[in-house]
């Protein structure tokens, strides 16, 4: 699948590319080729759709959240990715990539994880297909996402704690890439977001686009037309690009919500689109958080899945072109929304998704009564319950 946003292979305007040590280039070439062949193969799609449907439980519902709609003075629909197997959208992508790894004959998976949702989704497909699975996770994230660590171990994966840096997603990503570099012959690097070198941003987007494709069918069925606004949180940006991508050519407003952490003015945030600059991180050019010497600055977000100083190159492109709008909400606002959705709808959202909810709640009263807003509820919040309790 190609779009007008990809002017050449792996590029989104001036963003994207493959900035990695030569040691990885052979593996990337192999992956690009395998991915292009698989994506053009009907059998691959059939297999993937089989697992999406019978294993993951797709399609996920598009749910009219009535009490939240009343609060916001508009019609708010939730795309229930929290009901996807393992509790988040992450499985859409790991199912796609594990089928690809099998085609390439690679028996070992490595992955990075922040919130642990991608780690769980990788451990899950590793178990499903009997593959050795190693998940790199920062020590700070291990502390705040204990439940997911236990789940990964239960699923038979090995967790490698990462002490470097601040012990969060960026550092885990470095280590996962280094592992891949040392073991390229038998290992597939199962990246969880739309970051990294080509083909990851394109491939992960394609696998996550099932989210937007379903909304594109469900919304006309349930509402009679396409939505007016799509809202999703943006860390690396996989759930948001998955929702946005099938709507790029439609008259639909796209709004990505970054983590403003303690506030953009404090420097302690994870909002590279709002407050970053052009640079290279983890193999692609994008908007990143860095100092004037190009050293990467540690991000901060209460949501481990957003706690990352970069963002997928396609988001940087959509931001620059103006096709999508990016806003940010603070930890405090996200925590409030976490609590509000739980009490209003009986749905405990992941702290990441709570950012998208928080922005819509903040804007209450600014929407038309008949407007249709779809929020991607990218994951469930059970994993965050203990951390939120300690913060409240």
């Amino acid at each position: 699948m190609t779009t007008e946003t990809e002017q050449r292979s792996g590029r989104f305007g001036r963003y994207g590319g493959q900035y990695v040590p030569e040691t990885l280039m052979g593996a990337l070439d192999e992956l690009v080729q395998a991915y292009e062949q698989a994506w053009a193969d009907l059998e691959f799609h059939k297999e993937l759709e089989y697992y999406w449907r019978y294993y993951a439980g797709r399609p996920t519902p598009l749910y009219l959240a009535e009490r939240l709609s009343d609060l916001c003075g508009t019609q708010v629909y939730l795309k229930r990715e929290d009901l996807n197997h393992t509790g988040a959208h992450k499985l859409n992508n790991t199912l796609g990539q594990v089928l690809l790894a099998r085609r390439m004959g690679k028996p070992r998976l490595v992955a990075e994880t922040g919130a642990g949702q991608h780690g769980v989704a990788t451990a899950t497909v590793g178990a499903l297909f009997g593959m050795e699975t190693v998940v790199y996770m920062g020590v700070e994230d291990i502390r705040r996402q204990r439940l997911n660590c236990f789940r990964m171990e239960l699923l038979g994966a090995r967790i490698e704690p990462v002490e470097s840096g601040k012990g969060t997603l960026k550092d885990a990503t470095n280590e996962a890439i280094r592992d891949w570099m040392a073991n390229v012959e038998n290992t597939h690097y199962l990246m969880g977001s739309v970051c990294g070198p080509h083909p990851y941003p394109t491939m992960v987007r394609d696998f996550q686009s099932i989210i937007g494709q379903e909304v594109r069918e469900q919304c006309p069925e349930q509402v009679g037309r396409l939505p007016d606004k799509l809202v999703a949180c943006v860390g690396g940006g996989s759930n948001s690009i998955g929702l946005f991508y099938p709507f790029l050519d439609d008259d639909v407003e796209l709004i990505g919500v970054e983590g403003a952490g303690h506030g953009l003015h404090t420097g302690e945030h994870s909002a590279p689109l709002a407050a970053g600059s052009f640079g290279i991180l983890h193999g692609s050019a994008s908007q990143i958080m860095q100092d004037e010497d190009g050293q990467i600055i540690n991000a901060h977000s209460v949501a481990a899945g957003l706690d990352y100083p970069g963002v997928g190159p396609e988001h940087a492109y959509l931001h620059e072109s103006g096709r999508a709008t990016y806003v940010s909400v603070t930890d405090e606002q996200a925590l409030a929304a976490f609590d509000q959705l739980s009490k209003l709808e009986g749905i405990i959202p992941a702290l990441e998704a709570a950012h998208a909810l928080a922005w819509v709640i903040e804007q209450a009263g600014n929407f038309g009564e008949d407007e249709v807003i779809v929020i991607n509820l990218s994951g469930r919040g059970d994993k965050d319950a203990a951390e939120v309790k300690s913060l409240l």
Partner: protein
Amino acid sequence: MNSIQQTFASNRPAGRGVLVVYVTAGDPSLEETVEIVTTVADSGADIIELGIPYSDPLADGPTIQGASQRALEAGATIQGVFDCAAQIRERTSIPLVIMTCYNPILQFGPETFVQEASKVGIDGILASDLPPSEAEQWCAVAAEYELSTVFLVAPTTPPQRVARAVECTTGFVYAVARPGVTGARDELPEDLKDSVARIRQVTDLPIAVGFGISTPQQVAAVCEIADGAIVGSAVVDIIAEASNHEARLQQVSRFVSALAAATRQ
């Protein structure tokens, strides 16, 4: 012929391998780096790779990651490393190759970076995460200021990419000994000879082997099959573990002398 190629050419008739030694600039401080590099040069190294520390060096193992972290915490900046290089240049004429990742270069401005490097007497640059396929503009800028380029070739690099890497290189070809990151290893990989031969088939440029080369024995073995050997982490470890400045220089000198002797075996 540039100074890097000159160094290889002058060693060749005597059957000597070229010893390239990597040092992370700023670990433990930029002032000490000046003296460490001078010592390395005086102890028989032929080329210095001077690392500009980066926060997230993908190609590096724990040893050089640690050195980069310490250097950044001690306040090393790009401009600081250039000033350090200028001081080194006052003391020795040994070829200096900057090694870093591309993002620091990008933020400094590729053209300004090359201009400044050239001004302080740097001879070549290696950006470890800039593969030849992304390096078109970079090569043009480097050529304009007559700075030599160094590119990596891995054992996994397919033939058409080897050809491209060689085309972009004006200094020496950096043959990566094995998959994975930098760091000392006990043994040389068995297929090293084939990997080097594969590159030799397509170029007359000097070929130096790095990643995991850490002992005089390994240097001697590498110099049998390639034009030079690159030692990094083993030296960085000595720098990190020495108890004080004097001991550091003494131990570095002893180790580099042993490595240099091995190139003549």
